[in-house]
């Protein structure tokens, strides 16, 4: 009897407290978040962070990395900032790799959702954006995983690195297939148009962006002309095909086609350089360099006398109060000389650049015209020298107009008149006739036009060697070599060592910033 009594007692205690674990599933259901498994998220819900956040990020790296590597600016004010001396290490590589790949990953997921949800419009948009980001990744690092990227959930945790050639071929294929979807003018679901602060999901405009990006890609690998793209064509053939078939491959034909992301300055639609986070002191630290001043200012006998300046310069830069002329600092100067070379140097224009409602650009019309100018000059497309000149002048005009419009958003404004544009095209800075090396002229002007737009300046420099930059005496951190690529992050090397090693072997170098990437001039000439 007693045993029975205690059994009951034990069991009661046991059941009362321990009960059952039936409600454990409920207890462990996250009330805060949507699971991937639920399949409840629509593809369009992933778009805004990609578009706005992503464009902000590209503008950010343009400011932080491209400007410093490409000697638009040198942050010589803070002893802790030494990118201009190539004090760049694994943490920087990690941050760049992870951020760019993170956008790739989100776009990949958006594409997956669009496919499940049978939304061809968003499938096409995903593809275009995906190529944009992967282009940035491969241009920065060289060989990258492409065919096996972002497939951890499918079990691929150590993806194979594709050669840059193959990455470019696949990116071209993706743009081809996106172009075909756009061509069918796919249905855009109701209500999502306002999400797209660039084109309002106008498929025709996205299509132009897609194909313009295609031109960028082809131009980038033009040093490897025999590469077969779209399964059939060489690079020049494909460029010619695009130019000849504007109905099949519509491209940017004016600034109104630009891949411009508009920020309303209504929270959270702030552009990257919100005055809230960036003080003027931040900007004064980013000094324009001699190299940029040289390309934008004609000096008199004395460096204190500016006889002519590029009309875009006052929009991107500022003079020091007591210095009535443009002065650049020396990128990569040794620390000992810093105080000297910094005196009176012009710096980034806080008023125009640090606005939370400023436009940001993924790609613009001038770039397309610069590509065509080079293509005509080099005979990839028909038209020869004359066509090249027209394309070139269109490109410069488009760039100045773009910056003029940018400069009218502040008061007092920096509007640039058509006469000023003419004047520029006749000046020794921009004149086709005054500059016999037309390739150099085209690329140098392209370099200036690509200011504030991702890493395009650095990419084109590595492709062409223009503008010819001087390496400062203090650039000891990368043995006086302007970085040719970024290294793979530690995590990549640690978790995927065999494949990373194979990629480095394929590129022919160590995991450093001295190995040239496949499409670069240095690699081609090697």
């Amino acid at each position, binding site marked *: 009897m007693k045993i029975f009594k205690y059994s009951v007692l034990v069991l009661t205690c046991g059941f009362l407290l*321990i009960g059952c674990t039936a*409600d454990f599933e409920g207890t462990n259901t996250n009330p805060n978040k949507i699971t991937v498994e639920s399949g409840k998220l629509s593809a369009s819900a992933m778009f805004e962070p990609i578009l706005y956040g992503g464009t902000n990020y590209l503008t950010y790296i343009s400011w932080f990395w491209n400007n410093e590597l490409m000697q638009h600016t040198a942050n010589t004010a803070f002893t802790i900032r030494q990118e201009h001396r190539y004090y760049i290490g694994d943490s920087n590589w990690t941050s760049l790799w992870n951020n760019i790949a993170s956008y790739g990953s989100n776009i990949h*997921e958006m594409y997956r959702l669009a496919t499940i949800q049978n939304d061809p419009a968003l499938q096409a948009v995903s593809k275009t954006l995906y190529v944009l980001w992967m282009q940035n990744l491969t241009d920065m690092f060289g060989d990258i995983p492409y065919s096996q990227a972002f497939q951890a959930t499918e079990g691929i*945790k150590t993806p194979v690195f594709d050669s840059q050639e193959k990455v470019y071929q696949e990116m071209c294929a993706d743009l081809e297939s996106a172009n075909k979807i756009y061509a069918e003018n796919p249905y855009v679901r109701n209500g999502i148009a306002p999400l797209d602060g660039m084109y309002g999901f106008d498929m025709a405009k996205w299509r132009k962006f897609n194909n313009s990006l295609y031109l960028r890609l082809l131009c980038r690998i033009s040093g490897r002309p025999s590469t077969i793209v779209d399964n059939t064509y060489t690079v020049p053939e494909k460029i010619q095909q695009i130019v000849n078939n504007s109905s099949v491959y519509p491209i940017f034909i004016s600034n109104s086609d630009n891949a411009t992301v508009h920020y309303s300055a209504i929270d959270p639609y702030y552009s990257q350089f919100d005055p809230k986070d960036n003080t003027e002191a931040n900007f004064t630290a980013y000094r324009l360099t001699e190299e940029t001043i040289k390309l934008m200012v004609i000096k008199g006998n004395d460096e204190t006398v500016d006889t002519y300046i590029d009309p875009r310069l006052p929009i991107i830069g500022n003079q020091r109060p007591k210095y009535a002329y443009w002065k650049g600092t020396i990128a990569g100067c040794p620390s000992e000389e810093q105080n000297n070379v910094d005196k009176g140097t012009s710096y980034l224009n806080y008023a125009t650049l640090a606005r939370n409602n400023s436009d940001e650009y993924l790609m613009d019309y001038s770039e397309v015209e610069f590509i065509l100018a080079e293509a005509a000059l080099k005979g990839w497309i028909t038209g020869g020298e004359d066509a090249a000149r027209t394309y070139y002048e269109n490109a410069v005009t488009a760039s100045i107009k773009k910056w003029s419009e940018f400069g009218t958003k502040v008061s007092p404004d920096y509007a640039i008149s058509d006469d000023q544009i003419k004047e520029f095209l006749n000046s020794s800075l921009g004149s086709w006739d005054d500059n016999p090396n037309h390739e150099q002229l085209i690329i140098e002007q392209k370099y200036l036009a690509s200011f504030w737009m991702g890493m395009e300046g650095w990419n084109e420099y590595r492709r062409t060697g223009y503008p010819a930059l001087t390496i400062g005496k203090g650039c000891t951190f990368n043995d006086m070599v302007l970085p040719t690529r970024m290294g793979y992050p*530690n995590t990549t090397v640690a978790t995927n060592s065999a494949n990373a090693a194979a990629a480095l072997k394929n590129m022919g170098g160590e995991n450093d910033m001295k190995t040239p990437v496949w499409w670069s001039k240095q690699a081609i000439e090697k």
Partner: protein
Amino acid sequence: MKDEKRNKRVLFLALFLAIVTNVFGQNFTISGKVFDTDAITPLIGVTVRQQGEKSGTITDSNGNFSLHVEGKNPILTFSYLSYNTTTVAVKNKSSIEVILKPSAQNLNGVVVTALGIKREEKSLGYSVTKISNNELTKNVTGNWLDQLNGKVPGLNLQQAGTGPLSTMRVTLRGDHSLNHGNSEALFVVDGVPIQSSTVATGSGSTYANSDAPVDFGNGASDINPDDVESVTVLKGAAATALYGSQAGNGAIVITTKSGKDTKKWGVTLKSSLVFDVASYWPDFQKEYGSGSDMGLNEFCFWPLTAEQAPDGITTSSNISRYAFGEKYDANKLRYQYASKDWETNTYTKLPWVYADDWYKGFFQTGTTLRTNVAISGGNGKGTTARFSFTDTRNNWIMPNTGYVNDDVAIAFDTPLNKHIKLSSRINYTNKRSDNLPCTGYSAQNPLYTLTMGYTNNPINLWKEEYFQGRFNSENFGADGTNGHSLVYRSDNSLNPYRTVYEEKNTMDKNRVYGNISAIINLEKDLTLKLCSSLDITHLWRTQQKPFLTSGYMQGFYREQTTNIYYTNNDFLFTYSNNRWFNEHLGFSASFGGNSMNYRYYNDRITLEKLQIDGIYNIYNVPSGYSPDDFSYHSKKKVNSLYGFASLSWDNTYYLELTDRNDWSSTLSKGNRSYNYPSVSTSILLDQLFHFNKHASWIDMLKFKLSWANVGNDTSPYSLDRYYNATSYYGGYSISPNIPSANIKPENEQSWEGGFEGKMFRGRIGFDFTAYTTSTTNQIVSVAADQITGATGYTINAGKISSKGLEISFNAVPVRTHNFEWSINLNWSKIWNKLDKLQDNWNSDEPYQTDMGTTIGNRVYIYSFVGHQMYHIYGHGYKRASQGSYYLDNNGNKIDCSGSKIINSNGYPVLDTSNLIDLGKVNPDWTGGFSTAFRYKNWNLSMDFSAEVGGHCYSVTNFALSYQGKLKNSLNGRYDGFVVDGVQATDQNGIYTKNNTIFTSAETYYNIYVWNRNNAEENTFSTNFLKLRQVRLDFTVPHKICRKTKFLDDASIGIYATNIFCITPFPQYDPETAMVNGADIYGGIETMSYPMTRSYGINIKLSF
């Protein structure tokens, strides 16, 4: 007095029964029960012997015994370690009840173990350390846990010098898990776990973060040391296996005070007053003032026009936050900040002298006044109660910071009848603060501002600028229309007074925790304990920043509410029987269960812009701006069943087996049930080898050995992958972490063994323990390449093994009636090795401890597979490779491998291509030594502690040094010197000895030596020897107390802490760390607050 009376009563009772039962025969069995002083709690393991006989027995887990006695008038002795041995004449009773009184000297013999079970220390197969109440309340300022520092071998406290509440990270026997937040010890109060962690406010780390974290204190610091009876530190897994998954990292088991079973109600009044004085300072140089031109030009704060200047000479300003300027000289007159008369707008030149208080003057003497009143008593029939109220008021060492803390504790115990005893403990604590400072290297930390100050400006100038209202938009920033703010002219003006008076972080925390339990005697040998406990925290915090705050030019406001509900329900059956095998076998077994329920609610709203300056509420939003909302709720349940059995044979061999099974809601169905067994054994060698015969000076010699297998589950919602909300409403991104639905609980296996002994009647004692633990199946987010779609996968991976040694020794070299000298020594050492990370991990690559931004990615804490964990890595000087040489004047090859490489200007070059190992974070060993002298009623004690082998990178060091404000930048100021090293020649591997004198000391120190990139120079050994505390106590003699007619007891003590600290670590406290989110990480110091020396007095009166 009362106890004497009770003893008399017991004796009388015994005598009476003896007479009554005299008529019975001469050989008989007597049974009985032994109680603790409260006459309720049974004492387990009391040795009962008949006087003159060898054999005896021990009491079972209910305090019961039965013993066969012989002779006419048997006398029983009851002995129990740390209790007075009591003799009782049985006469011929068949049953007696005995109450034992604890002896003051032997208090260490009984300890509280897992689930609140009191055990004799000698029967334990694992290591425990007990700390009594008077150790804890000796000196209470910020965090009572500090009193454990240096006293418990294997216990490590990490604190980051983060403010008055000074959160500490408590680990036992090192980190066992790669999961940094999962390595802290469990806190158990009165048998029930409580919440001990902190809830982060602010984001990320304490380096260069404008939203810098604030230390709002952690849960463990809410415990009021005045209400604590004792603390037992259960270090190994065997000791804590019964707590299951919660206590894989050891447990701090706290027993709170209960009432005294006396009819008279006693009142104890304790009061203490502590003065905290910031006492350890950087080594400031007083020779050269503000400037960055090596004194080339005169210092001049004000750019004056000819009209403004009294001498009509136009000036332009020449200032710098650097102290690479003019040599100080009272004869030099300069325009300084104080030169301006703000009323008349006139300027006078002032003598150019160093201001002694430019930095130190900001700090004030902190005070903590603490008052505790406790009333305790009972009805003499077993019902007891205690009520305690404690009020703590702290003004911290920085102006306008501090906190107030009120604690109420109620303890109530009553026997409902012969079979049931009810107990309850309720604690309420309210902690509030009007301002706690931001921490770390951030413009929100007033220290940051101070380090940027000019060394010729007395602190009063800061004070006046703020209090006279001159910190305003007109004076603000580089472009201030009306002049300049006091700090070096940058865009972000700062003033430390403004920071502490207006950038406020407030808190109001209300917490109730406690339990109700019943002990039911079901049968003669069977009891049931039922216990229900609750721990509720409500926490309210705000953070306010006015306009013109660095990083938040348009102000900032955040409020956060956190609610935590944590409940535990338990039952425990205990059966014990010592009657088997002719009483050779002692047996006790328990079976119990626990249901844990945890709910957490955190809601936060942040405004990074305000409409109106100085108004702090969530509606003060500028148009076009949306506040940042955050909400997180979580739940967790763990159900458990457990059992344990302990066996003893002849009071010599002890064996304990435990087993626990947990079911956790955080794991998937197939993995949620898991089991943790442990075995421990203790053999009393003194009994085995009959030392009492041949070596009677040995009181006790024990061999102990234990094995356990425990582990950790995980946090809620770790199984699914989510989309994360972004700042774009309705816009989502995919979580960068891929979880696994199949994760298993972590597993930790440990072995522990050692010897413990007591000799010369407790005058000498030692404990030698060695252990090894191995943690596998760790639930960690292992690093992944983002190109795979994630930066981490949560999997079971990794293996960490630790080995350790712990030695403690205590002795009383001298003991006379009036004088006693005692010493206490402890020492411990841990080897912590990372055996394995994830599969396919390239072991040349380091595992990085995620500490947020580690000095802007300049310094890292790395662990390599196959090596000891946690090394500091950073850049150091470029050095000549092995086999390098230079030719001396005679053409001899001189080996110069490892010499610094000097550039052509005479400066040493930093090697940025490699990160180098700058030393281990954790010490090789830690030790503590304390000694006490008692003369009559006077007691003098001293506590020392020491650590050897650890390292830390110091932000405070570089911040002050690169500005030239410390003595470490004086050498070669004007004449330079030849840096020891070699210069490269054209041929590889061949060098010339450097003989170039560098030209600029500023460049040398600012750019090369003390630059934050130079981790080699800024990383220091944290070896130290501290005299932590000296204390003198006087207890008023009982004679005098008695004369007052009302006073029972009175004592007074004075003390001082941190009397000295000998260390190569240059800035403040070598025991330092950094904060990231809710965690504290060793190895990097991020501008912690100065180490204080405290002077205190406390008085205790009992009526």
